[in-house]
């Protein structure tokens, strides 16, 4: 195995900048790895070799001529295929966008280009980011690099699997109810959902606008901090991005944790929790105690309503957001002889079953006579969920939970019953409803050798503490240094 693909993004950036490695050589190593493994893993919608090699060459020339370089100069990154890169195809893993070529860059892409990052490919997802396993992709299902019979998680399953299989040191995902953290947990990597408003959503395909955030995925905590440094910040093209200074998430990552209070919400440690998950979390608690942290039991009393609230809100917002896919200006169009039929058939044939299910549920929840009982009510319970977090943070600095109730399940195990699939997001959903930041990081393996993840939840805009707490854990453990055999 080429040593380059085992390096972290932080190491690669340093080695490229100091001319110990050429970007072209690094990018080639990862693309070679992707070519060798992706027929088994299927993380990528497209490996953008030509595009990447041109970027790598430009980075190498920049460094050779002594010009100023960016924080990720020459470092490869995989991008979830619901984020626009100008002139590249962007499908959102949907038939309705199968041949869509992006006319502009998302803000995060613009920022990554300015930092010198190299785009090695577009990764598979559940159609329109709706799902927890990539089984809802209209094109194919991505496999877990630790066991190809299992799901990689979702919806950012392609990005998680790409990093897990070492075909890219970094990736971007999007997270509406756990779509970065749950696949990160399944694939044994780090995944971060920043505070709502921390990262611009401009140029990411809208699913549920009050919940969606773009975030980093990587093998190490430090790499995700480095990537968030690049993509965070206010953007006038996204009015929900918050005009607040971006700190340096790497700078204070190694602070001592003595006296830090970690909250364990009792509602998350339920009877049905998988034994391997429970064991790994218990060990993590011990490690934090050894690091001088105080462990405090807390309560988030409205946790039991989170999934219900989430599915009403996300489907309602999705039904409005996805109204734009009408086959008029772009996307799939079914041929008919009048416009109304054209809408209905284009959408009926262009969208997959899960997307249609959610549009229907959302349209129902917003329709006359049901609005107050569903959407209005859910928004009020959302307030209570948010208040639960506010009260908890009066007592603790950070909250710790399992990322998912079980390690990655088998492909096909839950795909027949949408409700069972929804319930697998139970630990990640409240974070999006409250708008706080969250992260999953590897904290063990099941007896079958499948990764287990733990979740850290910080206050609004307190990613700095979250990265610090996570980094210290990785300094004390080596779960993030394990590589799957594929």
């Amino acid at each position, binding site marked *: 195995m080429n040593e380059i693909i085992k390096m972290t993004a932080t190491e690669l950036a340093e080695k490229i900048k100091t001319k110990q490695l050429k970007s072209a050589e690094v990018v080639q190593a990862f693309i070679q790895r992707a070519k060798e493994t992706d027929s088994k893993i299927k993380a990528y919608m497209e490996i953008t070799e030509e595009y990447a090699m041109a970027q790598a060459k430009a980075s190498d020339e920049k460094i050779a001529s002594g010009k100023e370089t960016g924080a990720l100069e020459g470092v490869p990154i995989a991008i979830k295929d619901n984020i626009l890169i100008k002139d590249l195809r962007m499908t959102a893993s949907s038939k309705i966008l199968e041949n869509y070529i992006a006319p502009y860059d998302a803000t995060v892409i613009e920022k990554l280009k300015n930092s010198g990052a190299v785009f090695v490919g577009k990764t598979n997802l559940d159609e329109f980011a709706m799902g927890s396993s990539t089984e809802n992709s209209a094109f194919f299902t991505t496999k877990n690099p630790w066991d190809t019979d299992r799901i990689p998680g979702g919806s950012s399953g392609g990005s998680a699997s790409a990093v897990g299989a070492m075909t890219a040191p970094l990736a971007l995902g999007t997270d509406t109810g756990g779509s970065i953290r749950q696949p990160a947990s399944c694939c044994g990597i780090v995944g971060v959902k920043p505070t709502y408003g921390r990262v611009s959503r401009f140029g990411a395909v809208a699913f549920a606008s009050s919940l969606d955030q773009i975030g980093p995925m990587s093998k190490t905590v430090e790499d995700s901090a480095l990537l968030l440094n690049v993509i965070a910040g206010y953007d006038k093209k996204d009015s929900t991005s918050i005009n607040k200074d971006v700190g340096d998430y790497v700078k204070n990552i190694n602070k001592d944790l003595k006296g830090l209070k970690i909250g364990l919400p009792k509602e998350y440690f339920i009877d049905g929790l998988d034994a391997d998950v429970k064991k790994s979390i218990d060990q993590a608690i011990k490690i934090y105690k050894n690091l001088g942290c105080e462990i405090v039991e807390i309560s988030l009393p409205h946790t039991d309503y989170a*999934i219900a609230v989430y599915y009403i809100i996300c489907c309602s917002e999705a039904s409005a957001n996805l109204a734009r896919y009408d086959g008029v200006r772009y996307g799939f169009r079914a041929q008919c002889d009048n416009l109304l039929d054209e809408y209905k058939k284009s959408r009926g044939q262009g969208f997959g079953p899960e997307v249609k299910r959610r549009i229907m549920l959302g349209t129902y929840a917003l329709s006359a006579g049901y609005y107050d009982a569903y959407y209005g009510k859910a928004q009020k319970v959302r307030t209570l969920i948010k208040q639960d977090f506010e009260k908890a943070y009066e007592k603790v600095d950070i909250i710790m939970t399992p990322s998912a109730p079980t390690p990655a399940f088998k492909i096909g195990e839950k795909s027949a019953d949408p409700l069972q699939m929804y319930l697998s997001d139970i630990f990640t959903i409240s974070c999006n409803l409250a708008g706080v930041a969250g992260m999953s990081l590897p904290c063990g393996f099941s007896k079958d050798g499948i990764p287990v993840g733990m979740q850290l939840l910080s206050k609004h805009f307190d990613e700095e503490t979250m990265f610090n707490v996570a980094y210290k854990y990785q300094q004390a453990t080596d779960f993030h240094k394990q590589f799957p055999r594929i």
Partner: protein
Amino acid sequence: MKISKKDVDYVAALARLEFEQKEEEKLTEQLASILGYVDKIKEVDTSKIEPTSHGFSGENVWREDTVVKSSEQTIESIFKNAPAKDGMFFKVEKVMDIED
């Protein structure tokens, strides 16, 4: 939670979605099951609670509505994605049926 075929037809028309019969039967069942589950929020007392519409701030952001000119190349790349076009126009089927 009971959902009838009539309910599903009505919502499908609002959502501009057409379903095949088998697909619709399955969907009716699934919607009933999901709605049955989410109905649990009704047990929460929210009589004195304000709704939350956003993850962080709920304040509106105002700006001037100014036209920013796009490059020829951008315009061209937008029209390249059009299913049917006529110069600088998107072509669609007729909107209204005119009976003579």
